[in-house]
């Protein structure tokens, strides 16, 4: 209470000196206002807070409220003129149109006026005030522009109107109604999944269009420039032509064997399907020429180049989409702002029916509970005893080993099934038996995918990770499983083929003994991809329509709690993402062996959309665990990227290790497929050839790597420095906040002191003086010289 007994004649300056002797935050009685600030604010405190410059920004300037952000930004830029601001705020300025335009500036020109009109949209004021402002701006005197600037402005205006008109005309969005329905019922998380399917479909369509135009159509329309014919006398020299003719004869013989067989052939990709543009075997190995002209089209070169460029463009597309959201989605998602993220952006404002809103509320509740539990768990973890930690790590190691073992076992199963089916396919006749043996590997793969995925979802709960980590880990493991199963499938085929067929090939034979079905191995690989895609889609559709949907109907009619917990599914997005990713991985894998496969993939994506829509709306309930609805499609694109590289690896491996088959395709008879590109590059002029060779040499790679490492180091150093700066500024901000509270408390105390003294003398005008006391403080915040007068008055 030392302050109360201060001599009454103390001036502002002396009082100021005394202030600095206190240490903050003061524990004096006068500063119990501290709690008042964070809890309820007393009226005098509120009055004080309202006169702070940061609150003054809300006051109307010229009848118009500026957005707070705008105000600070414009004021910040003109800090030197800030001394003018506080006294002018709250008073009407007739000669200042805009705070950013100082009285001594020129009349604004048309460009500025137009910019200001465009900026009206972002102002947080009601519509009639906006209109007033716009009219004021339009009627204010403007400086007419000349020449180039005027042209720029007219162009800008025209362009913005044109853009708006275009948007109105071309406002067709595929599946608009379905997406609105899903959005209204499930929120933005599930919506982003369907947007992802749409993007993947467009990507596949683009690839399909490119392959169609550049590879399929020339081959179908233009005849080859010359065809080799089989010469029986000189067989070793014309072996490729002989083999090709034999192959074509064999396949054409099996073309039509009845309707049932035709249907099975369609499913297997054989018979009449085999020599269609769908598979590698259809394509010519000669340069095509348009008749009666001299237009040449090198088909083998086009085939490999177009495929490579398509894959490269896909990669660029996926990387761009991943990078867009990567920083936001993955880096910010850390533990730094998770609570605020949930509270402030959890609610999807687009939900339009009450029952979905209830689901969403449950979801938010679960997520908050989940976070609180995780925090508790983390706190416990720190307090965990040695024994518990050791036990947990043992459990985690064991589960990791179990998962690895299961993955290996699945791989081995697939390997043996493939070997078994390849052996039996050779010996079986056509018919049901053949069909079963050929479809055995794909069904095994699909079955294993489903079973092992379910197992992994359950086993991850044993490891007691945080929910976030659980979902990511399960996703990664399942992706790995799917990609590995395809890889093992392909690998076992290649191993068998190499051992049995390639090694024992005579120079004058088309194929080794017992390898007739693999005479054209690229087509066989294409057929395998075709079968895998069809099987996977059929399994998914069958499971959803014939198993899950009836279950759901059953549960709806018999609402027993145990049934619900056991069988009712939520629309867990990570699982459904994997289906699309798997389909896409197959497409990328097979595009080299089956040029029209992207078209098939696009069609399957189209069907996927409807299947998933059906699953989402009729079979599953909205996800109540928010981490089941990772919102950014960037994360899914990241998973796509991983599968892309896996597919690429498989294709490159097959092309590098195995010779092109002798009987079919654009590369028949050559040693490798790269030979074609090499021939073309050799024919280029010398400087261009050297240019290309330079890219493959060490003289290019080493400097590139060094530059990249230096750039990475530079950016990480900057990031570290910025981080440090952020910490420093945060601390400073906290100190400033404490200062502010302290000073406000002191001011409040000074006011009440003044008031109480005045109240002793003139009780009947206490009310007047209270407001005066506030005025004292107001004027006091402007300049200290004024306050001298004030304190003398008051005392």
């Amino acid at each position, binding site marked *: 209470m030392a302050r109360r007994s201060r001599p009454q004649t103390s001036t502002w300056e002396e009082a100021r000196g005394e202030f600095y002797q206190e240490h903050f935050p003061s524990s004096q009685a006068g500063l119990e206002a501290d709690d008042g600030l964070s809890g309820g604010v007393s009226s005098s405190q509120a009055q004080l807070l309202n006169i702070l410059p940061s609150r003054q920004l809300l006051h109307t300037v010229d009848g118009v409220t500026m957005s707070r952000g705008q105000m600070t930004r414009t004021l910040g830029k003109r800090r030197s003129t800030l001394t003018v601001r506080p006294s002018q705020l709250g008073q009407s300025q007739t000669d200042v149109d805009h705070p950013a335009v100082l009285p001594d500036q020129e009349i604004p020109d048309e460009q500025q006026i137009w910019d200001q009109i465009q900026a009206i949209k972002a102002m947080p004021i009601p519509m009639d005030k906006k209109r007033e402002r716009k009219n004021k701006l339009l009627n204010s005197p403007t400086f007419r522009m000349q020449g180039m600037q005027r042209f720029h402005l007219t162009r800008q205006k025209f362009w913005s109107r044109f853009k708006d008109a275009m948007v109105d005309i071309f406002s067709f969005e595929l599946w608009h109604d379905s997406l609105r329905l899903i959005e209204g019922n499930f929120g933005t998380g599930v919506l982003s999944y369907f947007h992802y399917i749409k993007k993947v479909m467009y990507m596949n369509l683009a690839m399909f269009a490119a392959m169609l135009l550049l590879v399929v159509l020339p081959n179908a329309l233009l005849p080859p420039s010359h065809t080799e014919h089989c010469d029986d006398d000189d067989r070793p020299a014309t072996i490729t032509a002989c083999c090709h003719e034999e192959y074509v004869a064999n396949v054409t013989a099996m073309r039509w064997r009845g309707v049932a067989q035709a249907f099975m052939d369609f499913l297997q990709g054989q018979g009449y399907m085999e020599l269609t543009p769908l598979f590698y075997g259809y394509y010519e190995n000669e340069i095509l020429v348009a008749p009666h002209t001299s237009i040449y089209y090198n088909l083998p070169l086009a085939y490999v180049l177009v495929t490579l460029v398509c894959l490269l463009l896909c990669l660029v597309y996926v990387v761009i989409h991943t990078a867009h959201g990567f920083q936001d989605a993955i880096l910010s998602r850390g533990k730094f702002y998770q609570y605020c993220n949930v509270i402030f952006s959890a609610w999807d*404002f687009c939900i339009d029916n009450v029952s979905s*809103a209830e689901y969403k509320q449950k979801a938010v509740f679960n997520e908050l509970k989940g976070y609180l539990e995780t925090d508790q768990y983390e706190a416990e973890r720190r307090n965990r005893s040695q024994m518990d930690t050791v036990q947990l790590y043992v459990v985690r190691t064991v589960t990791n080993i179990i998962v690895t073992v299961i993955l290996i076992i699945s791989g081995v199963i697939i390997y043996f099934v493939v070997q078994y089916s390849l052996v039996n396919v050779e010996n079986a006749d056509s018919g049901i038996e053949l069909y079963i043996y050929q479809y055995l590997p794909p069904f095994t793969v699909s079955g294993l995918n489903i079973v092992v995925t379910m197992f992994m979802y359950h086993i991850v709960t044993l490891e007691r990770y945080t929910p976030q980590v659980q979902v990511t880990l399960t996703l990664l493991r399942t992706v790995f499983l799917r990609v590995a199963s395809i890889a093992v499938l392909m690998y076992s085929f290649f191993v068998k083929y190499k051992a049995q067929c390639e090694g024992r090939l005579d120079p004058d034979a088309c194929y080794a003994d017992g390898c007739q079905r693999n005479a054209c191995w690229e087509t066989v690989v294409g057929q395998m991809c075709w079968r895998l895609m069809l099987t996977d889609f059929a399994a998914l559709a069958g499971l959803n329509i014939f198993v899950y949907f009836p279950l759901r109907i059953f549960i709806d009619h018999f609402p027993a709690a145990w049934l619900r917990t056991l069988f009712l599914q939520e629309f867990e997005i990570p699982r459904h993402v994997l289906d699309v990713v798997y389909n896409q991985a197959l497409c990328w894998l097979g595009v080299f062996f089956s040029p029209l496969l992207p078209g098939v993939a696009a069609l399957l994506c189209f069907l996927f959309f409807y299947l998933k829509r059906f699953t989402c709306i009729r079979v599953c309930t909205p996800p109540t665990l928010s981490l089941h609805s990772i919102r950014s499609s960037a994360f899914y694109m990241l998973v796509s990227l991983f599968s892309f590289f896996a597919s690429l690896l498989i294709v490159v491996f097959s092309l590098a290790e195995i010779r092109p088959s002798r009987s079919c395709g654009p590369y028949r008879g050559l040693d490798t497929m790269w030979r074609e590109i090499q021939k073309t590059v050799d024919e280029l002029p010398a400087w261009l050839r050297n240019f290309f060779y330079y890219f493959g040499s060490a003289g290019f790679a080493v400097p590139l790597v060094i530059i990249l490492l230096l750039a990475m180091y530079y950016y990480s150093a900057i990031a570290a420095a910025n981080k440090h700066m952020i910490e420093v500024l945060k601390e400073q901000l906290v100190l400033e906040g404490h200062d502010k509270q302290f000073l406000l408390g002191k001011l409040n105390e000074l006011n009440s002191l003044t008031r109480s003294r005045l109240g002793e003398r003139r009780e009947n005008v206490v009310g007047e003086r209270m407001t005066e006391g506030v005025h004292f403080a107001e004027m006091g915040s402007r300049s200290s010289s004024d306050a001298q007068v004030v304190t003398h008055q008051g005392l």
Partner: protein
Amino acid sequence: MGQGSSKQQEDFLTEEEIEDYQDLTYFTRQEIIVAHKKFKALAPDIVSENRNARLEMSVMLNYPELRANPFGDRICKVFSSLQDGSCTFEDFLDMMSVLSVHAPKTVKSEYAFRIFDFDNDDMIGREDLRELINRLTAPQRITEMEMMQLIQNINNESDLDDDGMLSFAEFEHIISKCPDFTDSFSVKL
């Protein structure tokens, strides 16, 4: 049919008004017309007579997205020109413009701050946060201890000057770190 045509003029927006709205909101021509149609669907009789009629909050809350929204009444109050929840067509257009996908994050965060500031004291204090969490998770109950913990966590993450409340600057800073905000704070017409 002079009577009919003059009634028609009251009903539909004039070209001038549409162009005006195009300058003042983030909408295109088509979207403004669709917005007017939806506004009219809320109370066809009243809006036919005056295309900029003022509708009570109870009528406004019949709009599907507002009805399902736990903050529906706050949204109406914030955008209402009389601050009591009743909206004219211009208020409604303003609301939809801010909630559209074209509006930038700054505008959205400004209005989100106003919506979440339940006691209108220009700060999001403890009581505001409490009300916010309760509305988000109703009818599930959060225990008092968990509520205190949640409020404490939020303040730890976002209250930079340590005064126990979120000012607009702190709120904007937090929103800039939330990647989902723009998507979730959007309504399509």
